[in-house]
């Protein structure tokens, strides 16, 4: 599903910010990606959502070897990947509704269906009364929920979320985690970057831990955050 083999990554000509990354996430798995600030969590996610190329190693996403993928095949693959950015990246001139509807409209979903899906999801994340607002009019937590709604609306096969509960209160955080678990239940593979230990304890799942750009063969796993079965070792 998502397989990394000896992957390295650097920005421009700088030092490698990720080194010797190898792991294999099975289809339908739910994984936390954790580590100190600057450890490389966001960078690792960027590799997974095809926004950055590795400087070495092999990456396989949804069964496709990225180094062999022609450019024309990328949009199709990206449509199957939902992304929640750490900094949300909503489109400011569009309403909340249109932001969330965008992935469906890009894949030419009928407008009636778009309306039903988006309304339902916005209701679920508690934004039913903000559909006509634009992102700059929202609080940080509200923007985060819009970003999550946009990432999950098209039922991606792979969901990558970067600190998706960092700006909401614990109750809403739990609600969003339930949304992710619901999605996971219908088959979506999920990776959530976070350093919210309390949340990881409430909603247990496998853990990948980054330490200064390298995967550590998980003391956290040993401490009992569910079984990983893939921490740090390629299959």
């Amino acid at each position: 599903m998502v397989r990394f083999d000896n992957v390295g990554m650097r920005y421009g000509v700088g030092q490698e910010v990720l080194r010797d990354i190898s792991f294999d996430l099975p289809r339908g798995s739910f994984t936390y990606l954790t580590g100190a600030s600057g450890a490389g969590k966001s960078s690792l996610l960027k590799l997974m959502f095809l926004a950055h190329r590795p400087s070495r190693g092999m990456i396989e996403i949804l069964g496709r070897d990225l180094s062999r993928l022609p450019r024309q095949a990328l949009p199709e693959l990206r449509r199957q990947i939902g992304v929640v950015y750490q900094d949300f990246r909503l489109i400011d001139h569009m309403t909340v509704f249109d932001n969330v509807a965008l992935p469906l409209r890009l894949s030419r979903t009928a407008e009636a269906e778009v309306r039903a899906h988006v309304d339902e999801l916005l209701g679920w994340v508690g934004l039913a009364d903000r559909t006509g607002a634009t992102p700059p009019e929202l609080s940080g937590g509200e923007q985060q929920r819009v970003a999550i709604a946009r990432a999950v609306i098209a039922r991606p096969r792979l969901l990558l979320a970067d600190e998706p509960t960092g700006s909401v209160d614990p109750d809403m955080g739990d609600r969003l985690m339930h949304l992710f678990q619901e999605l996971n239940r219908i088959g979506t593979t999920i990776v959530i970057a976070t350093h919210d230990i309390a949340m990881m304890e409430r909603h247990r799942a496998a853990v990948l831990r980054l330490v200064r750009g390298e995967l550590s063969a998980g003391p956290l796993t040993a401490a009992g955050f569910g079984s990983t079965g893939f921490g740090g070792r390629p299959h």
Partner: protein
Amino acid sequence: MFLRSLHLLPRGALSSRLVPAIIATMVLLLTLASAAAIGIERSLASFQSELAGRYTVELPTAQTGAVDDETVARVVDLLAETEGVIAAEVVPAQTMQTLLEPWLGRDAAVGDLPLPVLIDIVATPGMTLDPAALAERIGKLVKGARVEAAVESLDEIGEIAGAVELSAYCVVALVAFCLAAVVVFATGAGLAAHHGIIEIVHQIGARDRIVAREFERRFLILGFVGGLIGVAVGAVAVYGFALYAQSLDSPFLPAMGDFMRALVPLLAIPPLVAALTTATAGLTVNRALRRLA
């Protein structure tokens, strides 16, 4: 589908007042240059048809002294009997004097000079006379008589006019090139200004076509509206100029209606400009996006 937009770009994203103004100005220049080229071409054509079938007989006086009226009358008779001639008329001395005034001065005693006698001939429409054969026949009455077709004098003018017309079309091509260059710059600026949005849309899985289409739509409208404004202003200017030219009543100028009819193809400028701006914007976006992995 082409006109359905996802409104990926904010309203008015590319129509910072300057871009439409530049496009309209370029189209105005395009219109004026095209109208000039067409005007020259029509003038030449009208002058040509005006002069076609006109010949001039010149009875020299230099060696032989003045040609007497009786001989002139016999030449006119001979011409009148010639097949294909519908009119032959002696250019009156008064007219000759007027024609020569700029060279000889108003007070020159024209009567003292042995002026050549000129006879204007109008041929039956569609008939061409053979100037050499005619000259030979008249030569039997007046030694050294010459016959010249009026159109021959047009050849040089025609060449100059042709060169000016070609230059006008070169201006048209250059303006079209500049128009495309403006669109390349404006598109580049738009891509830079909305880089964030494009990255997001790209990440969500939009194909390059979708993004390109957003820009194409903007430039289709900008090109068409700019084209309409430019052509409208240009048409007013050209019409004004045509009215003025008409008042000159010169044989060099075509009839007003004829000229205006010749300008009808200029109505194709707005759609052509729209096609140019649209295609340029699309190509520019596609090229830029290809650099985005």
